[in-house]
């Protein structure tokens, strides 16, 4: 990946209000050169509005959008030089694949010879050179998506914006194109800004994810960082699945604390450099289902909860269990199905165990 080709984007206090409704609320975000950033959030979280503001289709009520430090907020979309892949692709139905890809070059007044060479290069990039003379409706969904990508990249845009680029495809094709999209990003080395509500897509594609809810930026960071250290309950819940354990902080120390939840006392180890929690304060822990193990007779773990299986589901690769525990309420756990120590049945007594660093403290979201 060459960092020289990409451009850096910055959002400064971006807001968008429609009457009383605040679609985007004071969002500040930096996108580095050549970075693949995903705006992730449920519908109505403001992610698409932010993308449309970056593209120039929505004028922000407040704040600024900067490209390499230059304020581009007042520029109309056609002056921004950003490539965009629209939801549903928005290919021009009256133009062939080659004409679609040539469109951005045509409106820039490029000569036919230069145009043809560029179009060929862009179609090669997405492996569609053989389809140049077809009409969009003669292509499959995946091929249309690749034409949209070629069209958005052919004019060497400063940024590539993607609005739910894979949402119209079936699951298998989506996984394939995810890999292609990631490989394409590496090949062209440009800055990509992607919008999705699909957390798996966000995790697998992005260098960095920005999680939005109710128009606010909740947390931004590398996928692993967000998954392992979610800042709030919303992030932990939206990105993957999570159990939430609530209690009082006891024995607070720089490296960890114990959470008193009813009669249970759970050991929590904090990562290096994490701020210690105040003794006696309320705390919420996020505990990922896959970090919980099923303990055999005589096995020990730093934290143990006993209970009975309420319900279970077989998912091929694993089992998903709902366990009613004595002190901690209902806990979800997933375990590999292959060589599972137990055959789950409803009502079966089990012991769940997890290490002290498995759970991470999170904040409650502001309403």
């Amino acid at each position, binding site marked *: 990946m060459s960092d020289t080709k990409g451009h850096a984007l910055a959002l400064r206090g971006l807001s968008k209000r429609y009457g009383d409704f605040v679609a985007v609320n004071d969002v500040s975000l930096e996108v580095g050169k050549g970075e693949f950033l995903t705006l992730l959030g449920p519908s109505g979280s403001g992610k698409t509005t932010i993308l449309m503001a970056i*593209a*120039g*289709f929505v004028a922000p009520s407040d704040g600024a959008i900067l490209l390499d430090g230059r304020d581009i907020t007042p520029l*109309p*979309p*056609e002056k921004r*030089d*950003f*490539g*965009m892949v*629209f*939801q*549903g692709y*928005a290919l*021009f*139905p*009256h133009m062939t694949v080659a004409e679609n890809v040539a*469109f*951005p070059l*045509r*409106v*820039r007044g490029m000569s036919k010879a230069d145009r043809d060479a560029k179009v060929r290069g862009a179609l090669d990039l997405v492996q569609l050179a053989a389809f140049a003379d077809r*009409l*969009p*409706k003669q292509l499959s969904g995946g091929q249309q998506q690749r034409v949209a990508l070629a*069209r*958005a990249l052919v*004019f060497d845009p400063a940024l590539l*914006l993607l609005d739910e680029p894979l949402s119209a495809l079936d699951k298998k094709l989506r996984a394939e194109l995810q890999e292609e999209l990631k490989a394409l990003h590496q090949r062209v080395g440009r800055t990509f800004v992607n919008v999705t509500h699909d957390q798996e897509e966000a995790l697998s594609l992005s260098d960095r994810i920005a999680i939005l809810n109710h128009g606010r930026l909740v947390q931004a960071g590398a996928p692993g960082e967000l998954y392992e250290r979610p800042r709030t309950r919303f992030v932990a819940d939206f990105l993957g699945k999570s159990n939430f354990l609530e209690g009082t902080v006891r024995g607070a120390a720089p490296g960890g604390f114990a959470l008193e939840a009813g009669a249970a006392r759970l050991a929590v180890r904090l990562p290096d450099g994490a701020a210690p929690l105040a003794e006696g304060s309320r705390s919420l822990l996020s505990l990922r289902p896959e970090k919980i193990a099923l303990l055999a007779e005589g096995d020990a773990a730093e934290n143990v909860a006993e209970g009975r299986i309420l319900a279970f589901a077989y998912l091929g690769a694993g089992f998903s269990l709902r366990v009613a525990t004595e002190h901690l309420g209902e806990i979800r756990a997933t375990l590999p199905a292959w060589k599972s120590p137990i055959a789950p049945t409803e009502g079966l007594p089990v012991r769940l165990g997890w290490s002290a660093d498995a759970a991470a403290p999170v904040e409650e979201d502001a309403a």
Partner: protein
Amino acid sequence: MSAAGRPGAGWWLLILPAFLLLVVFYLAPIVQVLAISVTEPEFGLENYERLLTSSAVQRVIFTTLRICIITTALALLLGYAIAYAITLASPRARGWWILAVLVPLWISVLVRAFAWVTLLRRQGLVNNTLMEAGLIGEPLPLVWNEFGIVVGMVHYMVPFAVLPMLSSMREIDPRLLAAARGLGASRGEVFRRVFLPLSLPGVIASGVLVFIFSLGFYITPAILGGGKTLMVAEWISLQILDLIRWGLGTMMATVLVVAILVTLAVFSRIVDLRRIFGAGA
């Protein structure tokens, strides 16, 4: 329908009444018109010879074609602008626009023709206003000529031009226009390269509709032409009702029907209908 999917006797019985109705009241008179045109006053193609020999017949045909082409062009131009404005309007404004387009259709064509006479005649509103403003010294000849006919016909035809174009414009995905701008096209280019080509099926449909409709126009040209400028329909009525020249009248009627069929055939051939009408995907 039988199991094999072929229509059985029952199916034919069901459409028989409609079929008979069409044959008796529609097909039979047309065949009769065709028959008269080659038998009156005597058997032969004598009436059709007039197409090549009679300058009066040729003048009527050329006048009709000229008026129809001008009317179609103007109705398309005005209709396109209106349909475009309606497409871009907010949903509420759109309802009012469509109402405004449709209201003239509910007013009798006779009333509208006389209304235009009132406006355009020598002492009409238009001439009087222009005279009083001192812009002209003499009243302009605005009616009882081709100009008057075209004004009345365009007025009548604009709604028919608007509706097919409007439906074709509303099928255009607004995201395509946004995409075009996002890819660097100015507003003008978006219109020229994306909106206009995608609305073309509607323009062609409107054009064919208005042109064919105009060819057979009778009341408007009769009133606004004042008997001086003759179009085909009025000429036919003149031959049959006033001059009792059935042969000549039915010949022209046959030519009119053939002209309409040829127009339809040509347009369904020149225009690749599948490409244009299937382009909405």
